[in-house]
């Protein structure tokens, strides 16, 4: 548990944090959001004492952190930054193992950790451990950045706009991975972003800041239902409709990979908001292990759903599925007999690879016939 008590910080004349008091519960995914310069990064960096407040106290599990050794404190808290900051002179393995090594773990202890963690993000050890960061894509680099933060099993991980520099597809993949890891490893994550879509998707609790103060601290549902300030509504409005759902079509296959997925425990309101944001009318529901469970549609939730219920209760399983390697003809037939108007594409391990709609199919075929189309 992290507790802020009347924390203030100024740089010269400007007050950056104004008497902040709030509390983060163990195991929560807390997202700090707000306009640029509102103090998100400053708040985050006071937690691992990269910044010392002028007044006030921060407690972690009841201990006043100003009394702790800052170096030891930081080793017990994961830290991920937007610029990634993997050490370019170290391999992937060395980067991940850097904190365990600082803590003097023997090799027999840290090497299995590195292997496990790489497995967690689907990057096989043998292929990746001995690469240098410059040999990885941006998304892979930030996966390693996240793993480095997790390596010494810190109960708390701080992330400052970790996906801000990634392209939308990679960003979405990492959001899902981090959310899954957080649930699996039961971490407390404090996550800074200025993307409302990201906040809605990841957060258990959203802390909306402005001018060094907290305007509202609430669950995504609550924030959507009762925004406490016009600025918050505006912020959510601004992030509506910025998503181009057709951007990911490739001619090689007909599927789009950018699909809305969520665990069956997501709250109905939150899922409705996500679907509206994306301008889609259904989303995919996943099992705990990320395999495909079913779908849920906006209409069903509207007619039967009540606020506060989990979307798993309204899930349908009638939408046809195809394997990633299914040939186009079969897929086409399934698509045209699908009552929902789309089919779900699954990987060999039954995780969701994407989906094919009539539009995406038609567009891909058009491209195959007439070359690149302007959308």
């Amino acid at each position, binding site marked *: 548990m992290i507790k802020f008590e009347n924390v203030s910080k100024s740089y010269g004349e400007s007050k950056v944090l104004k008497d902040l008091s709030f509390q983060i519960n163990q195991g929560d995914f807390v997202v700090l959001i707000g306009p640029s310069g509102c103090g998100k990064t400053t708040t985050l960096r006071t937690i691992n004492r990269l910044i010392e407040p002028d007044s006030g106290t921060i407690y972690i599990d009841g201990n006043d952190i100003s009394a702790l050794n800052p170096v030891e404190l930081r080793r017990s808290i994961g830290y991920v*930054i937007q610029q*990634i900051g993997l*050490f*370019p002179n*170290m391999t992937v393995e060395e980067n991940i193992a*850097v904190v365990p090594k*600082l803590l003097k773990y023997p090799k027999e202890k840290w090497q299995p950790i590195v292997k496990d963690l790489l497995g967690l993000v689907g990057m096989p050890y043998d292929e990746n451990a001995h690469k240098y960061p*410059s040999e990885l894509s941006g998304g892979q680099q930030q996966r390693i950045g996240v793993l480095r933060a997790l390596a010494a099993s810190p109960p708390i991980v*701080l992330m400052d706009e970790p996906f801000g520099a990634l392209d939308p597809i990679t960003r979405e993949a990492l959001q899902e991975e981090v959310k899954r890891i957080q649930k699996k490893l039961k971490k407390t994550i404090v996550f800074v972003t200025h993307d409302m879509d990201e906040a809605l998707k990841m957060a258990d609790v959203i802390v909306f800041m402005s001018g060094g103060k907290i305007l509202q601290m609430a669950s995504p549902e609550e924030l959507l239902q009762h925004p406490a300030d016009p600025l918050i509504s505006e912020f959510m409005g601004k992030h509506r409709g910025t998503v181009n759902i057709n951007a990911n079509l490739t001619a090689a296959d007909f599927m789009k990979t950018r699909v809305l997925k969520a665990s069956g425990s997501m709250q109905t309101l939150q899922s409705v908001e996500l679907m509206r944001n994306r301008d889609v009318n259904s989303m995919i529901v996943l099992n705990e292990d990320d395999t495909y469970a079913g779908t849920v549609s906006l209409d069903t939730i509207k007619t039967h759903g009540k606020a506060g219920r989990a979307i798993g209760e309204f899930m349908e399983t009638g939408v046809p599925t195809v394997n990633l390697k299914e040939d186009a003809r079969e897929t086409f037939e399934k698509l045209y007999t699908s009552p929902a108007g789309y089919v779900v594409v699954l990987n060999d391990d039954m995780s969701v690879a994407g989906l094919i709609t009539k539009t995406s199919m038609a567009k891909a075929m058009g491209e195959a016939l007439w070359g690149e189309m302007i959308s």
Partner: protein
Amino acid sequence: MTLIEFFIANQKDILGSLIRHFQLVGISVAAGMLIAIPLGIFLSRFQRFAPIILNFAGMIQTIPGLVMLGFALLLFGIGLLPALVVLSLYAVLPILHNTYTGITEVEKSYIEAARGIGMTDGQILYKVELPLALSSIVGGIRTSTVFTVSWATLAGLIGAGGLGDLIWTGLATYNTNYILAGAIPSAVVAVVLSGLIHLIQKKITPRGLKGVSA
């Protein structure tokens, strides 16, 4: 006597001068490193001192070698010692400059990450800053070495020996063979050492940093 005959007839002398030349260069570059690298690290920690020290070192560099040798002669007399002192002074600046800029130009995000995950200042220096600055530091050593090889020819003037001895003898007696016997090896030494250090520089640069400037 052709040049080749001259080389063969005087091989002992030439070899002796060559070895002495290597000694002059080796010792003064080593001394330069011992001074410049710690000083460069110090300046990167306390950057307010950097301009004054770097300017001072730059000023020394602009004093003509002969003048410096003259001073050294007055202070230390004739022989090896004054030559080594002067050459070491000249060797300092390129290494100092490259150590300082190599460290201070390490991208701030690496330092931020290093501090954020719990490295101490010393660990940040040894595990992050120095490895990333290493290529630049070795580049400075290479420059120093090439300079010192040529400056060392002046050392013959104050009785420190080396290939310069042969050149000065040649100049004094209008004997081109002597001049060439000093000049050719010193040119070769400069090129060979420079190439060698360049190889080392490439060898010690981790694969992840190739094509990335530190």
